[in-house]
């Protein structure tokens, strides 16, 4: 299914989501605010996006972008869900109840970005030791033990 068809189909299936639909660099993206994330996820699950492929975040400086990649076998298509959270108070609803696949992936984002997923059943650090200080994938993370690579290209 190409992107136009997907957009058409999405507006047919879920009129609520259609206004948030956009195209970014050739990918279908649903951009929502962080407080609407859970209901958007439920809606998308309802219309057939049964597979949560990836959860990740990107540190953009003034805000953190959460990126979810969904796949649907019935629609044979994929789309991104993107939402912004503030780095100072990074709270967002957990999608564990919608897709259990979010379990470890959200723990990873919590570990490396410090985004707290409210409602997650077992939010602990997953990659780093429990006594680790800071969230390394944030751009402002600094650790004196890290040796910076000399700048030769």
């Amino acid at each position, binding site marked *: 299914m190409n992107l136009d068809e997907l957009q058409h189909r999405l507006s047919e299936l879920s009129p609520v989501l259609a206004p948030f639909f956009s195209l*970014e*660099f*050739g*990918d279908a993206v649903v951009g929502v605010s962080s407080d609407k994330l859970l209901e958007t996820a439920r809606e998308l699950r309802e219309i057939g996006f*049964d*597979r*949560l*492929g*990836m959860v*990740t975040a*990107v*540190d953009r400086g003034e805000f953190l972008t959460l*990126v979810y*990649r969904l796949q649907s*076998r019935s629609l*044979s298509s*994929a789309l*991104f869900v993107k939402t912004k959270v503030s780095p100072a108070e990074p709270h967002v609803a957990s999608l564990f109840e919608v*897709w*259990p*696949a979010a*379990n*470890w*992936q959200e723990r*990873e984002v919590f570990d*490396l970005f410090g985004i707290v997923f409210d409602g997650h059943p077992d939010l602990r*650090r*997953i*990659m*780093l*030791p*429990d*006594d680790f200080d800071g969230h*390394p*994938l944030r751009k402002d993370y600094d650790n004196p033990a890290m040796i*910076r*690579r000399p700048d030769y*290209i």
Partner: protein
Amino acid sequence: MTLNIESRTKTVSETGLPVDEIVVNIGPSHPSTHGVGRVLVHLDGDIVVKADMIVGYLHRGIEKMAENRTYLQVCPLTDRLDYVGSMYANWAYCRAVERLAGIRVPERAEYIRVIVCELQRIASHMMGIGSAAADTGATTMFIYAFDVRERIIELFEVLCGSRLTYNYVRPGGVSMDLPEGWTDDVLKFTSTVRRPLDEMDKLFFGNTIARGRLKGVGVLSAEDAVAWGASGPTARGSGVNWDLRKHDPYSVYPRMEFDVVIGDNGDAYDRDRVRLLECYESVKIIDQAISQMSGGAYKADGLARLITPPPGDAYDHIESARGSLGVYLVSDGSPRPYRMKVRSPAFCNLALVPKLAVGHTLADLVVVLGSLDPVFGEVDR
């Protein structure tokens, strides 16, 4: 970070009776964790009541390192992700870069990529089946499987000079053209590999004890497989017909004729056997790819050494031996990726361990772990 754990805990069972649980710490260095995984198992007698899978013992921060390297310099890092199947991470990363920078790959390069990745699939599945067999005590089966893998490694060594970390698939194509006579060697391999595969099928999957050990252990339903994000042989063993080569076709796979192998019961036996049967399909694909391949460039023309894609993001995935391996790249217009994220199939599959192991004995826990075929380089990144 200390490793001390309480070895006994007292809890109350559902029936209200006190249970004296034994906590067994398996790992992080244990023969059957396939690397550095760790499972804290709570046992009631010999039955697992709770299994806490702890990962991260090989978290090397590859995603952070990628932010300070150019797009080409990230390639060697991707080799070290899935060290049993280095070609896959190479390819997935290169596809994401190509999509981001709009690089067109010549057809010959696509065929070469398909050939090496299907060879890699056999090699990786051999390791997966072999170590799953070794978990049940069949060491000889492991060695037979490794023997087949070793033949593929030799082919790769001729191809790019390395046994494990190939760095062969590069953005825009592959690093060098096929050596003279290499395809003949591959055809010789594919024409002879069926016999050891049949032998292994009989030796392990036809064995009564092995069937008794694997059947009915760690049953994963198709719905759970989809909901928990399982992919690859783990999902296909549960009967989920989901193979990116067929259902989200990329490269030259639409021109290939092959079947998607799926299991019926979703137990450890099906997951392991799907791996073996996929090797036969890979052999088919390699034969077709070699016969269809024609001459031409092995690398995109006029490719700058310093790739500077326009700002934006791209995600692309391939079907690796463990499932859908995706790479998400964010560019800010500089020669270095702003953010790289690897969607690791082994990581998502491994999240099922606490779910699958409960209710089985301790001996079955290692079977469950082995049937998911984790590679911790990729799980922890």
